[in-house]
């Protein structure tokens, strides 16, 4: 199946945020904070305002006059008192040309009384594994939960396996930089932008600016890669406030250095794990997580409480105690990165599980099979597990491991990683179906970000629901002013949630058509004499008999919505903070084969297999694309990708030469296998696919390295230096 966007994209015809322009447009540049921490004394814009071509130069003191209600005091567009991270935007300039805007931005004088920044969380809290108090300065969230008699489990254990894992910060590196074009006219605020969440960006930007959401219109473009980087508001408030100040359309586009400097991705963490074992079985676990949240983190409890679920599953653990601390540092804000923080947690827990099995002398796959969840089990938080393909995936993995042991050269390391995820359909999705004799149009809010969820996934769902051919179906997106509400392309939810909304709208539409036909029985849509018609039993009724003249012209419109429900956790297990229940249970079981150069520590991935729990395959091409793309992105996090920071809060590697993502020459053969038959939250029981394939990759690679060398690398990524050091220790 060729993607419907292929012809346009192959010829360079797709318009992204960075391609937007408008008559009278001016160019914006943000003015960065010169240090990572300190008291902001003043921002002097006088010289910038006099510079050639400048149409607006604004700083903290100008916001009150530009924003009718002054904006959100908790999230000001520009800080007025404290600098929280290096390069934090403190002012912005718009000029006739980009060169003039850049020159003017350099004339802005930012006076800061610098203070020592907090950059490394372990430097600040050396006693974190045991001694950190939940109200210690810098701790912005603390979550705590427990269940069962952990002391007894530890006291009666044959041994307690204790390890500390460290994970690094990573960047999205969507190839398309952020860019938008904003205009403000007669109280109507409008921004065209590259976004995964048009409505989310609207709500967020309106809140930051202190304007009613209805007075802001967000129109998306094709998105050149998201991975979480293009959710909520980011550039939009800056461009909008400059548009308000200048009265001109304002273009604001990031360069790659800005992408790195402004972050909003995964940041470093330290995870301490202690697991007790008796009779070859896990009896208890204690977990302590210290998470760097950067300068801010919306929903801190969400990051810590939600991440912790990955440290306690997908295995049965009778007794546990878990504590998570979110620490504010002078780095850019933490933000979502494809399966936020899950690959890091799974690296820790599934390396730990693998090591535990090896310590017991049990085959790691068998050990996992003894403990892994299946339907009817309970999570650590007491939620009943639904249909879950982990055992089926592990059985396939066992066969693959055996085959590779026979066929790959001696010295090859083979490792397994097991991750899980849940399709986030809880956030709302709405669609509007429009039926004419020519086609069925699906009107909805999201733009294609690359996965195919919009151009292919929604169409594939509709094909299957209505039995209509592809060419009779069309997905249309305009802007938040016209489209039905949807919460965004994130959480592996898009096809599942919007697909269920299409299902709801379609059911209502068919019922209405049956009623109009005054016929008993279920209506279907068919193609009759080149036009869409309604079939009921053996009858085929042309739409001209069922639709009014107006409907024949504009379409019969029926809306549908889906707001999914998650299960419930047992609140008695929660001591403090928020922990989350899942909507469904999606397993990802991966097998990696590697060779390790014992002298240099360099790791080469030879083969890879991914057994992905999908519920039902909606489209085989999309499935393969998501699995291959997710695995390769995960190989980057496993082996090379890491943001590096100087003690003064300066990022050391803000570019693609020093922050290395995989290239085409480094990709192994990947076998992508769909595990079907364990239904999830989407239509036909499908499960979300955008995120699961990245989750177990660092674990599978690390376990393969351990298998090859006998050495356990406790820190991501597995750079040659770290691998070589682990080999020396052993």
């Amino acid at each position, binding site marked *: *199946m*060729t*993607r419907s*966007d*292929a*012809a*346009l*994209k*192959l*010829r*360079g*015809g*797709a*318009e*992204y945020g*960075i*391609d937007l*322009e408008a008559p009278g447009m001016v160019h914006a540049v943000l003015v960065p904070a010169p240090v990572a921490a300190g008291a902001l004394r003043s921002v002097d814009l006088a010289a910038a305002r006099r510079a050639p071509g400048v149409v607006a130069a604004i700083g903290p003191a100008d916001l009150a006059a530009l924003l009718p209600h002054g904006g959100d005091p908790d999230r000001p567009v520009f800080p007025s008192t404290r600098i929280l991270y290096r390069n934090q935007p403190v002012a912005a300039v718009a000029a006739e040309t980009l060169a003039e805007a850049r020159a003017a931005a350099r004339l802005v004088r930012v006076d800061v009384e610098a203070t020592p920044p907090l950059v490394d969380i372990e430097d600040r809290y050396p006693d974190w594994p045991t001694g950190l108090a939940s109200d210690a300065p810098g701790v912005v969230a603390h979550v705590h939960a427990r269940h069962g008699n952990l002391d007894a489990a530890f006291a009666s254990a044959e041994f307690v396996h204790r390890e500390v894992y460290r994970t690094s910060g990573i960047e*999205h*590196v*969507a*190839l*398309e*930089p952020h860019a938008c074009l904003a205009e403000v006219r007669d109280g109507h605020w409008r921004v065209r932008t590259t976004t995964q969440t048009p409505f989310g960006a609207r709500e967020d930007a309106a809140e930051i600016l202190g304007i009613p959401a209805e007075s802001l219109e967000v129109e998306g473009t*094709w*998105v*050149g*890669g*998201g*991975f979480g980087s293009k959710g909520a508001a980011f550039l939009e408030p800056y461009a909008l406030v400059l548009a308000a100040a200048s009265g001109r359309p304002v273009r604001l586009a990031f*360069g*790659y250095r800005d992408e790195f400097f402004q972050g909003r991705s995964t940041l470093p963490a330290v995870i301490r794990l202690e697991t007790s074992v008796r009779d070859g079985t896990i009896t208890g676990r204690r977990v302590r997580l210290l998470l760097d949240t950067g300068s801010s983190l919306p929903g801190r409890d969400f990051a810590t409480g939600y991440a912790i679920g990955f440290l306690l599953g997908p295995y049965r653990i009778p007794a546990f105690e878990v504590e998570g601390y979110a620490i504010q540092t002078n780095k850019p804000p933490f933000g979502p990165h494809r399966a936020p923080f899950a690959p890091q947690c799974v690296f820790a827990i599934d390396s730990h599980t693998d090591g535990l099995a090896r310590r017991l002398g049990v085959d790691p796959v068998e050990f996992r099979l003894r403990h892994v969840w299946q339907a009817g089990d309970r999570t650590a938080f007491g939620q009943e597990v639904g249909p879950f393909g982990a055992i089926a995936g592990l059985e396939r993995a066992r066969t693959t491991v055996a085959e590779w042991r026979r066929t790959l050269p001696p010295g090859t390391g083979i490792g397994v990683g097991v991750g899980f995820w849940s399709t986030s359909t809880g956030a709302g999705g709405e669609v509007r179906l429009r039926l004419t004799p020519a086609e069925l149009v699906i009107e909805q809010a999201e733009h*294609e*970000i*690359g*996965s*195919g969820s919009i151009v292919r996934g929604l169409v594939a769902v509709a094909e299957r629901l209505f039995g209509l051919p592809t060419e009779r179906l069309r997905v249309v997106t305009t802007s938040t002013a016209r489209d039905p509400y949807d919460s965004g392309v994130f959480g592996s939810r898009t096809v599942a949630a919007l697909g269920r909304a299409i299902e709801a709208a379609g059911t209502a539409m068919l019922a209405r058509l049956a009623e109009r036909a005054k016929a008993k029985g279920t209506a279907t849509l068919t193609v009759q004499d080149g036009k869409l018609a309604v079939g009921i039993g053996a009858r085929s009724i042309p739409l001209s008999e069922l639709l009014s003249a107006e409907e024949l012209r504009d379409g019969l419109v029926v809306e549908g919505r889906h707001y999914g429900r998650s299960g419930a956790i047992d609140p008695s297990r929660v001591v403090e903070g928020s922990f989350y229940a899942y909507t469904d249970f999606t397993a990802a079981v991966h097998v990696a084969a590697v060779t390790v150069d014992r002298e240099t520590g360099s790791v080469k991935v030879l083969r890879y297999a991914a057994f992905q729990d999908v519920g039902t395959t909606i489209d085989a*091409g999309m499935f*393969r*694309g998501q699995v*291959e*793309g*997710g*695995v*390769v*992105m995960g190989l980057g996090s496993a082996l090379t990708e890491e943001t590096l920071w100087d003690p003064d809060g300066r990022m050391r590697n803000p*570019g*693609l*030469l020093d922050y290395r*993502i*995989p*290239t*085409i*020459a480094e*990709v192994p053969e*990947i076998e992508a296998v769909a595990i079907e038959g364990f239904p999830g939250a989407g239509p036909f029981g499908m499960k979300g696919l955008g995120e699961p394939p990245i989750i177990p990759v660092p674990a599978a690679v690390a376990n393969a390295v351990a298998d090859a060398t006998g050495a356990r690398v406790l820190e991501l990524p597995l750079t040659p230096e770290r691998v070589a050091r682990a080999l020396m220790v052993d």
Partner: protein
Amino acid sequence: MTSEVALTVNGAAPRRLAVPDSERLLDTLRWRLGLKGTKEGCRTGDCGACTVLVDGETTLSCLTLTHEVQDRAVTTVEGIAEDPEGRRVLAAFAAEDALQCGYCTPGFVVSLTGIRKELGASAPDSAVIEALQGNLCRCTGYLAIVRAVARIGNGNP
């Protein structure tokens, strides 16, 4: 300094434009000629999204001054279908769904076209893949692109 330069793009008659001496070909193509299929990525020569052909050779337009291509033939993704090799690449990418978000796609299409011209039709796939390392993709995991390369290599686009 701004001075005049004659640009021959996608086989059209040469166009004379007044362009600053320091302007990059990427910006001239995108903002003066409206050829936005050539994508702006890193601007440091690391991602390959801005690749064009200059006299048939793959060239990073972000590292090329517009004045350097005076009197030379520039081909962008918008003109790639005029080239038989370009048509093979387009067909193979479409057949293999070798794209997702599409942002790196024009760079890959132009690079692969230039690489095939440079290495010749009988070049092994491994040499072609090696030469494609300068183009980064974050969505596909590259394997669909590798399959597109193989499809062309098999003479079956």
